[in-house]
């Protein structure tokens, strides 16, 4: 029997296949080039609006001035960035430990879950801006206050996603573990935690962004003065001085931090899942 696709036979590319390849190639570079193009055009438009209309810099600074400020104030901005980053990452770390720990506790004991889950929800649905002032009254250390605020915002997605994941372990696999006499710990370690990993990572990605939001919002509430002067504080202070370019520069850094956190967590998620989980597997077509 002979086959058309065998060995040295010419490659068979039909119309559909050709258009599919064209689409793939387009998507491959379009994914990067198009957003860059959009931001480039946006910045250009911004620049033109500012210069053509002669808008004064204390109302709307142009992109060039913002960039110059970023360079000029770099030392100051970097200090602020590091503080914001530190609070965000520490809050995220505690959110992970607390969220996963609580989720494990919940799945190990229905009693604990029934008793405490409603309060985790209440903590989540109450806006952080309304809790933060109270926290800063009772917590003397400003850094600790900021951390608590960021943690409150960030921990819920980790908790709820991980709880969902731990409970989503395949029922037949659970039965199998029972038949083979697995201990509670073995079931957690070999079945529930791996089942929960994709859910946890989804929650972590959300929590990363929320931790940043939490730390920025808390800093606004905490106000000026004292230690722990992050990017939010920089924006606040610059606004008092009508230093609009610095406000933009700090804003730019906050946005960039958010993007970097999200990208980093997405990469982590890909590394951990790409071998087995549907969400991270590349498809041919």
């Amino acid at each position, binding site marked *: 029997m002979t086959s058309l696709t065998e060995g040295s036979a010419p490659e068979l590319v039909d119309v559909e296949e050709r258009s599919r390849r064209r689409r793939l190639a387009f998507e491959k570079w379009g994914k990067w080039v198009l957003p860059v193009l959009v931001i480039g055009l946006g910045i250009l438009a911004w620049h033109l609006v500012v210069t053509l209309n002669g808008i004064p810099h204390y109302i709307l600074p142009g992109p060039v001035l913002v960039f110059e400020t970023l360079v000029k104030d770099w030392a100051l901005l970097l200090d602020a960035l590091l503080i914001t980053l530190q609070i965000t990452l520490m809050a995220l770390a505690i959110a992970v430990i607390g969220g996963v720990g609580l989720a494990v506790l919940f799945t190990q004991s229905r009693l604990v879950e029934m008793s405490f889950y409603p309060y985790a929800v209440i903590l989540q649905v109450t806006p952080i801006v309304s809790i933060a002032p109270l926290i800063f009254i009772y917590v003397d250390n400003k850094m600790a206050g900021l951390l608590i605020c960021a943690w409150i915002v960030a921990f819920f997605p980790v908790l709820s996603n991980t709880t969902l994941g731990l409970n989503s372990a*395949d029922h*037949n*696999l659970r*039965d*199998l*573990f*029972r*038949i*083979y*006499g*697995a201990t509670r710990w*073995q079931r957690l370690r*070999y*079945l529930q935690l*791996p089942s929960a*990993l994709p859910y946890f990572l989804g929650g972590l990605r959300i929590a990363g962004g929320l931790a940043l939001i939490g730390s920025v919002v808390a800093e606004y509430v905490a106000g000026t003065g004292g230690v722990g002067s992050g990017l939010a504080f920089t924006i606040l202070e610059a606004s008092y001085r009508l230093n609009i370019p610095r406000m933009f520069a700090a804003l730019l850094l906050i946005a960039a931090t958010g993007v970097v956190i999200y990208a980093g967590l997405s990469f982590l998620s890909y590394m951990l899942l790409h*071998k*087995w*989980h*549907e969400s991270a*597997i590349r498809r041919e077509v």
Partner: protein
Amino acid sequence: MTPPTTGQRPELMSVNRVGKVFGGATVALQDMSLTVRQGDFISLLGPSGCGKSTALRLMSGLSLPTSGAIRWAVPQEPGALGVVFQEPTLMPWATVEQNVWLPMRLRGASLSSVRGEISETLRLVGLDGFQRAYPRELSGGMKMRVSIARALVTRPKLILMDEPFAALDEITRFKLNNDLLTLQAELGCTVVFVTHSVFESVFLSDRIVVMAARPGRVLRELAVDAPYPRDESFRTSAEYAALCREASAALHDAMGEAA
């Protein structure tokens, strides 16, 4: 087909007038009695909802009978029982080798100490060389083979299989039926196999338990007298066709009675 002969082989498990009621109202299984002897290949055959899965869960100890009792005639050490479900039920995050390792891992055996047994079992089910593959890289039939390897790796006395091949295409199913018989002969294990296919039950088993639904119960037990080994030539033989006709008639009789 004749009524089953009893005696010859030693008893492994006895199911004695077992019933199971769910939610105080649904009679999933009523008054089931069955004696499983070592080396038996028993099929539970019946329409869906007749309590086949319930019977299997009771035998596996995953669920407790509402009435009656299930008794093992041999000491029931861990690993004496293997189970295969309708879905392959593999851990997607673990390789083939790690999946088959599971029953031994749960008993505290390290992978390196049992690697030989795992490889041997994978060879038996025809998956030699797939140790490092992930389940998603395998076809439905191959996943089911991994699932069977996992059930076999502890060399269990009894294997319970709940419609393991129902979701596979016919060609794959025939192949797995043949291989399952070869494995059973080679390992001398005892199998209780749930199916709703007359053809599958006749091909595989030496005894068929015909069941009916609402309430789930055993209607008849048939013995399939055709000798082992059975292979492709048996599947195409007139004898097989005749046996299938008989089993089919028994099932329809049974369902007629039930209606």
